[in-house]
């Protein structure tokens, strides 16, 4: 059983305006919900409850339905992503070359589970399926930067690299 405890946040007027504009771009159509959520998440990084409430109001549908869609697709997240989102490829090639051990090492070092963000907001951990770099398996992405042939022993160094003020190119959008 999992209960998600969400801190209640007050959205800035400008954020509400951003969401409204995105909804308007899609003619406030209920059928465009997924596109709207994609756009909103791209802008805000995540989809907290308050954001879903605005979307529901704008598209004239129930919040329960919006929440249903957000929880159905693993792409959508209700948890703010870390400054450096870490994704471990779990595609077949990476998996057989030890991605799971790499993932476990990240979990151990960062003390978070998949889908969570470290308390300092720096790192979030997720899995993805194949980034098309199977020759480099196992692959880890931090933001837009790709790390290839990662061994569990390297995990500590990768994290350290970002802890000390990061390489500029790795900053995610």
């Amino acid at each position: 059983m999992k209960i998600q405890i969400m801190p209640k946040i007050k959205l800035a007027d400008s954020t509400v305006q951003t969401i409204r504009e995105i909804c308007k771009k899609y003619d406030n159509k209920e059928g465009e919900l997924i596109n709207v959520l994609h756009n909103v998440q791209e802008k805000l990084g995540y989809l907290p409850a308050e954001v879903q409430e605005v979307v529901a109001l704008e598209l004239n549908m129930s919040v329960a339905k919006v929440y249903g869609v957000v929880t159905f697709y693993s792409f959508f997240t209700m948890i703010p992503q870390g400054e450096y989102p870490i994704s471990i490829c779990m595609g077949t090639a990476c998996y057989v070359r030890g991605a799971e051990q790499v993932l476990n090492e990240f979990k151990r070092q960062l003390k978070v589970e998949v889908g969570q963000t470290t308390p300092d907001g720096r790192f979030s951990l997720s899995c993805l399926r194949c980034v098309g770099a199977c020759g480099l398996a196992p692959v880890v992405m931090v933001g837009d930067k790709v790390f290839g042939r990662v061994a569990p022993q390297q995990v500590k160094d990768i994290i350290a690299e970002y802890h000390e003020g990061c390489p500029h190119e790795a900053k995610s959008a």
Partner: protein
Amino acid sequence: MEIINLTIDNKPVVVKKGTTVLEAATSIGIHIPTLCYMKLEDLNIENRPGGCRVCVVEVKGRRNLAPACCTEATEGMEVNTHSIRAINARRTVMELILSDHPADCLVCPKSGNCDLQNMAHRMGIREIHYKGEQSSYRKDTSPAIIRDIDKCIMCRRCEMMCNEVQTVGVLSAINRGFNSVVAPAFEMNLDHSVCTYCGQCVAVCPTGALTEVDETGAVIRALSDPSKTVIVQTAPAVRAALGEEFGMEAGTLVTGKLVAALRRLGFDYVFDTDFAADLTIMEEGAELLNRLTRHLQGDPNVKLPILTSCCPAWVKFFEHQFPDLKDVPSTARSPQQMFGSIAKSYFAQQLGVRREDLVVVSIMPCVAKKYERGRDEFSVNNNPDVDYAITTRELAALIKISNIEFRALPNEEFDKPLGESTGAGVIFGTTGGVIEAAVRTAYEVYTGKELPRIDFHELRGMEGLRHATIDFNGLPLNIGIAHGLGNARRLLEDVRSGKSRFHAIEIMSCPGGCIGGGGQPYHHGNSEILVKRQQAIYREDSNKTIRKSHENPYIKKLYAEFLGAPLSEKSHHLLHTEYFDRTK
């Protein structure tokens, strides 16, 4: 109209184009098992997600099995509903559904009334060959409804009712795969949501996933407490449905046996909510005429149409969804609450009993009444006007627990003074009834003339939205009727935009009105039962000698001895209420 010929289990059948295999089979008496499918024919309500796959049949020439509920019959189709392949697939599906279902049937509140249990029995499932993870979701208890989601089979009937029929939008399927459940947004508890407690989700749930809060234990305890005087009121729709719980034909009126049963249960006085319904008409009718007269005199402050306010789910609905219109409905309390208020003032005084020592129990076709009785404004010094509200189903359980042979009971009469009622009070139990009762009284008060007729057939029926114009001696009174909150929403949107041309609107949350309430014996998808209950209500009305609320002698006496007149200060204090904006 195109005609389709097909055979089902070698029987030829002719159907209209567009008919499903399931409907075609039913038309020739072949009942293919279903679980998620539900159709309430007379109310235009259908749930057909095609998700459970229990209704699969074999179609000659088709590679895979076809779900009968959502496969259209085609010309020359040869269907076999009980080939070994179909039977095996159906049993496998059933076993998989059962494999993560809690096996606590013996103590489940739905035991004996469970569609899943019945289906497993019908299919002769004796063993479950699959063992896997069991879901464990927290139980959610609200003032009226309990969600025990481990028992959910994802048929989505509740979701359809909550979203499409009622447009309340509380329930939705969330999460994915094994973790998917039906829940409110952000998995909040029902009592934090905009749920109206109409209970239509409970009425259609095939399992024990959604049930009402059980108050029978508390009632038994009150009845066995010698320091308490325990009185009971029974809502109009109960008498038209309770018999079903004891194997009687739907539409059997059991008013006399109901009274006898309540007396044997040990209630000190057996009263009738119909009395309070008559009282409601006096107050609501006076309010209608007051607003109407002021409107005709050109008063710009007067709000029309007036909306009925008997239904607690409807009240909660507009408090959440149309708070800007909270001045539009009548301020009259519901009959349940009027009864409680009068019982704990007027009647308690008559008996010489303190209100704390008087326990008021109501028997309701409704689960929202449990919530309504707990609203803060309906208590005095923390003592509620109505102490317990139990459903028709809970009453049946009480009667069975108490070893009362219901069918063998004699017919008995309600006690006086709060048990005397008119035909107008009885018809509160069906859609169209409250407004017909109001018309019977308002017409005579307004025109000063006797009604030329008592039956207003133009106000009756099962269509979700109805309207009629009644001639009030030259004044055409436009009346709207909606049952089902989705239909109510349509009328409300017109009121909001100023397009409504109605003077008065009756709204009941449940399809069919209280006869189809969330606390009534389960209809298991057969809407004919609701039609029969409706007919029973009108039969009870025509059997009454007095059929207009203002002619009820005990209502007259109550006003003469205690209240003064409708809308008097005392009436306002005891019989009217206010509404709240629940969006804040």
